[in-house]
């Protein structure tokens, strides 16, 4: 059986790791490198670093942050998202130390961006961010820069369902940061919309009951935990104890 992955998500604002509440309010936590080191030490399946300033300021990706993380000698796959505007940015993100990347709001300006980026990084490295809002049976992508909802029409859907994207990073915008906030129905909806496209799901996932519920969806490949991992030392190991061993990788804590 294919193992579901568990990812640790670190949201970075002004080079500080923050706790996010629906991507509107932020509580500073500390140096991102510190959280990356912890997640790597805990042998989590993958680490996702999201720099939310990079897109807003149109400053490009935070290469210095990626380089600083690469220097930490981590042995866990690293995914970076934030400010990736073109193939050159993508190439540099990988060269700086990320294994995969997340395309954010730039996709809404250029629907061919996944194609262009996959030509230099390979499609396996390309993840598309889908900050999703469901309203009256319709689906919208939330544009963080413009603070605007973009309706997912059939044209956008065709670009999402493309071979140039390996997985979708689904975030439940309205429930991010809320304890037990994630609404699994959104996964079912997306399964129908995107022809079973593999998903990384994020936003308000906070306990193992909820993780187990989400893991039952065949289109979920990774369950992404943010704030809730950071509260205690070895929190990931505590989570793993309550998860079925046939569905998740039981990583050994060797260090």
């Amino acid at each position, binding site marked *: 059986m*294919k*193992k579901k*992955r568990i990812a640790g998500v670190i949201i970075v604002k002004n080079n500080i790791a923050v706790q996010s509440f629906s991507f509107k309010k932020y509580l500073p936590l500390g140096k991102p490198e510190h959280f990356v080191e912890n997640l790597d030490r805990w*042998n989590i*399946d993958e680490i996702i670093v999201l720099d939310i300033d990079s897109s807003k300021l149109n400053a490009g990706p935070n290469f210095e942050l990626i380089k600083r993380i*690469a*220097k930490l*000698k*981590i*042995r*866990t*796959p690293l995914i970076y998202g934030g400010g990736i505007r073109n193939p050159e940015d993508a*190439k540099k993100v*990988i*060269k*700086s*130390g*990320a*294994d*995969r990347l997340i395309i954010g709001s730039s996709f809404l300006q250029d629907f061919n961006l996944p194609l262009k980026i*996959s*030509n*230099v*990084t*390979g*499609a*396996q*490295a390309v993840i598309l961010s889908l900050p999703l809002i469901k309203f009256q049976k319709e689906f919208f992508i939330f544009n963080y820069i413009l603070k605007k909802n973009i309706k997912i029409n059939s044209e956008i859907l065709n670009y999402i369902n493309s071979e140039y994207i*390996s*997985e979708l990073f689904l975030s439940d915008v309205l429930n991010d940061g809320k304890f037990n906030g994630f609404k699994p129905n959104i996964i079912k909806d997306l399964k129908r919309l995107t022809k079973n496209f*593999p998903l990384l799901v994020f936003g308000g996932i906070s306990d193992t009951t909820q993780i187990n519920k989400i893991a039952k969806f065949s289109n979920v*490949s*990774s369950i992404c935990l943010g704030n809730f991992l950071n509260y205690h030392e070895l929190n990931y190991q505590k989570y793993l104890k309550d998860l079925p061993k046939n569905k998740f*990788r039981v*990583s*050994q804590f*060797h260090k």
Partner: protein
Amino acid sequence: MRNNKIVIVDYGVGNMASLINLLSKFEFEITISNKKNVLKNADCIILPGVGNFTEAIKNLKKNKIFLYLKKLILSGKPTIGICLGMQILFQSSEESEDEIGLGVLSGKIIKLKKKNIGWFKIFSKKKNQYFKKSNNKLFYFNHSYGFKDVKNSCESYIKDLYPYLAIVKNKNVLGIQFHPEKSQYEGEIFLKNILLDNNFIKNVH
């Protein structure tokens, strides 16, 4: 410090930090280079890689080492290819219409029906001491193309993806589809078993 010099070929695809960190742990002398004289003096060459087949070959050609590298590997230089680094060792790939591979392993890289991303158990097909300790262990894979084994060159594989291979070995050439440098403890044991316990560099043939 061991006397063996390992050269990681720099051809502009992907980050090498994790690999360098891991190999340094085994106390090898590590150099990153795309220079012919450095490659020539290496005891072992490693081709890493996250990227696109066309881009990788174009970069090797741009650095004028494509033919030199091919000649060097064919002359018996111990060589390890990781992920895309493994794929470019083959003759060609469906990922590239414009460029052919190094051709030191025969066959064509084929597009997978489904991209293979995540942690998968690998199983040994042959009883090769190099991979004994890795049987039934989980490693990190991240690829959209792979090599379908038809000539029994496969050493290890993933059950759901068979006959696509996870590891191939032919004389001095070792190809690894997964990322040992990103496979945490198991990745370290895997490379240690090859490079130290079984001394791939000396006992390669």
